[in-house]
């Protein structure tokens, strides 16, 4: 008993010591400069070298310093929850709508009312209460072997459940966020039961167990293991833009299309987006940053390496992205992806989609 007490005392001492010696260390260096520097802290779940260039540009333009923490969206979310009021986070960047919804759902974001942003970002690509804004688009579509299929045979997601696709489909694991988001929209449109049936049919048409990333699925088409792959558009584009000759050949021997749910329903679209953290202390700077990302310059940097589709219509497409066919976006609100994400995983599990 006393032993435990002693242990606890020692422990609290230790934690106290760690806490005590921790506080000021970082800020002191900044205070040394004459004027306190503005700091914008970004919690981002993406990592691109072009993002860094973009941040540097913003720093140069505004004189503010950007602190960036990069980690998975769910880890950033837990970190913010743990930090509570003390969180230094000002801006949250996530590479899918579902994650942004989760930050909002956990009460970690705040609305950003800005007329400029509202005009730049179409209503589908921002939260109805302006808690988050899209900054680039990512399209889940189908890469296929054009010698085997005509685009018309793959025009909707339902065509993948047909018997003639048996043993032809390659797709990655169900826990991938883009599979979950797609499933989220299918649940929204057709209900859980039909969604599970769809997933089950896909599983029975798979050429192999889900494995690897999207790029691996496209390569498998070129290698002949399957003829249809469910992938995001930019992986296919990047293969075409790769330094490696083999990759370029893979891209050349495959085609990419963006299916609808039914004729005229529009297509599934995901976003990279940004939210202002509830703990943000410099709202003006946060807004400046958001607006900066939605300038033509900002947009071209965001999409340069990623090969995403810019959100701002006037921005020229990054190299190679013009190969992506035109499409009509679905009018489903993107909040659906986050709301249905857990159900999507559950139904995938039940369908046996690893």
């Amino acid at each position: 008993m006393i032993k435990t007490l002693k242990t606890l005392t020692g422990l609290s001492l230790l934690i106290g010591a760690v806490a005590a010696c921790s506080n000021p260390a970082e800020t002191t260096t900044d205070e040394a400069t004459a004027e306190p520097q503005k700091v914008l802290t970004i919690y981002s779940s993406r990592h691109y070298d072009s993002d860094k260039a973009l941040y540097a540009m913003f720093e140069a333009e505004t004189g503010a310093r950007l602190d960036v923490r990069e980690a998975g969206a769910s880890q950033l979310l837990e970190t913010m929850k743990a930090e509570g009021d003390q969180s230094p986070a000002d801006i949250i960047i996530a590479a899918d709508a579902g994650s942004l919804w989760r930050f909002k759902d956990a009460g970690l974001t705040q609305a950003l009312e800005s007329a400029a942003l509202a005009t730049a970002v179409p209503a589908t690509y921002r939260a109805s209460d302006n808690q988050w804004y899209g900054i680039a688009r990512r399209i889940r579509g189908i890469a296929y072997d054009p010698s085997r299929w005509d685009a018309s045979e793959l025009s909707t997601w339902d065509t993948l459940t047909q018997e003639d696709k048996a043993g032809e489909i390659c797709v990655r694991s169900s826990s991938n966020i883009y599979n979950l988001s797609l499933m989220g929209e299918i649940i929204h449109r057709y209900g859980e039961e039909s969604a599970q049936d769809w997933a089950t049919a896909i599983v029975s048409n798979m050429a192999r167990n889900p494995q690897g990333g999207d790029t691996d699925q496209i390569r498998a088409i070129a290698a002949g293991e399957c003829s249809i792959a469910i992938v995001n558009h930019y992986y296919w584009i990047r293969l075409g833009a790769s330094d490696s000759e083999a990759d370029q050949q893979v891209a050349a021997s495959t085609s990419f299309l963006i299916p609808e749910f039914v004729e005229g329903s529009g297509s599934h679209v995901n976003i990279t987006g940004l939210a202002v953290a509830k703990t943000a202390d410099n709202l003006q700077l946060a807004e400046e940053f958001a607006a900066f990302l939605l300038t033509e310059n900002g947009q071209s940097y965001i999409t340069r390496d990623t090969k995403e589709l810019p959100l701002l219509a006037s921005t020229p497409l990054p190299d190679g992205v013009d190969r992506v066919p035109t499409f009509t976006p679905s009018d489903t609100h993107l909040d659906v992806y986050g709301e249905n994400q857990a159900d999507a995983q559950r139904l995938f599990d039940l369908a046996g989609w690893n």
Partner: protein
Amino acid sequence: MTLLVGISAKRGQTRFQMPRFSLSPRIIPPSLIVALVGLPVFAAVLTGLTAGDGATWDHILQNRLIPYTLTTLSVLFITAIVMLGLAVPVAWLITQYDFPGRAVFSWAMILPLAMPGYVMAYAWADLMGVAGPLQSWIRESTGLSARDYWFPNLFSASGLAFVLATTLFPYVYIIARAAFSMQSRASIEAARSLGARPFDLFWRVSLPVALPAILGGLCLALMEAAADYGAADFLGIQTLGVGIIRSWQSFGEPNTAARLALMLILIAGAFLIAARIFQGRRGTQQTSSRWQSQERAKLSPLFGFCASAACSSILLVCFAAPVFRLVWLALENSASAADLAPLIRSTLLLGALGAAMAFASAIIFSLSSKRSAALQVATRLIAAAGYAAPGAVLGLGALYILRETGQALSGSVAIGFLVWIYVSRFTSAGVEPIQASLARLPKNLDLAAQSLGSTGLRQFLRVDLPLIAPGAFAAALILFVEILKELPATLMLRPFGWDTLAVRAHAYATDERLAQATLPSLLIVLAGLAPVLLLSWRLGQTERT
């Protein structure tokens, strides 16, 4: 902190011999360390147990728990078989026989330890994948299509086991080599004089005698395999490690993830207890007062060639081929080496800091428990729980604790928590080699030292530390390499501007830019090589004396 307690403990003890199980100040350092190591796991599991239920847990319990567990167990089983199959015969060959290249193989076999499991998975997935060089070559030379021939599937439970075993077998090898080379030469000669051929010697004498030690090493390697997430996720194998991350990421239920982690911890505990029971049942090795350096029998040219070929192919598969492939990819894609310097710096700094703290913790763990078998089992189980828990779950535990402190995860708080998680996660990896050293010391040494008036810190510095130096050195190097490779906790807890090589490699790899991931991955391997070589050299030294 613990040092201060150590000194006060000494003061309390100099005059009066305290009764054994009373409130001796001696138990404070170990209790602190136990608390320190155990707290993150405890916080995670406790939160998981109290708050981890709900629809997600029901779903996992009904539909996924058994498949996850069975997959994990079968992966671990195959991993164990492959590791034993690689490490034990090689260690035996290298300690007992002389053949071309033996001296090189003796240390080179440890090299795969520098290779993180996830990097090994990237490299082998690229080599073995349907679009990889091997299969492309098959198709080109035969004209077959990818559906017409059978090829070993790396994206399977056995594939994952292969990847894990190739990176972790050096643990078993190191321990098996030490166990074989320390065996009394006389018992080998006695067995030979009784008509035992090399085959009998291995199966009837050396292996059974070395088995308890080998199982200890196997346990350690399996715990690390169980905690793997990176390789399993990349290969799409539904292990508990993947299930844990899936509950967190897909279902958004970190508490359920923590609850699921308990299953992994239970499996690790079961391994440890099983190994302990097995070890206890066997007689202990007599320490031979008279052993001379082992003289190795020279293999005939044919067998010598076979032995060299076997060792070379193991090295090729477990190290050379994947490294070569990574270099190839890096060159082919002209990966840029820009701004890697700060990554290298933070990797080495965090590695050194983490290794130093985990090392101190392992030392205190081992020394404080050496007098009591019960305490030893308890401390080992706690350390093992940290080792078997995925780094992400420990990170989660750290966040639960962070929440109680009301601090932001930045600056020294972040470093403090990160190092704490390193300690919690890797103490076990340090404890094993140190305890192996301790086990070899004469039992009366403590008493001898105490009779000479040496107690507490003084005894530790003047008697214990020099004696366990070989094991302690190995422990420190292993810890450093482990922390270099660590990913999930570093990813979660590092302060701003402290990206490590592993973090960078992961960032590229998750976005399927493997070509860019190769350079930081190779640098991790490179950074790990120096300590691994030092370790090999040092182990060779201690075994020769």
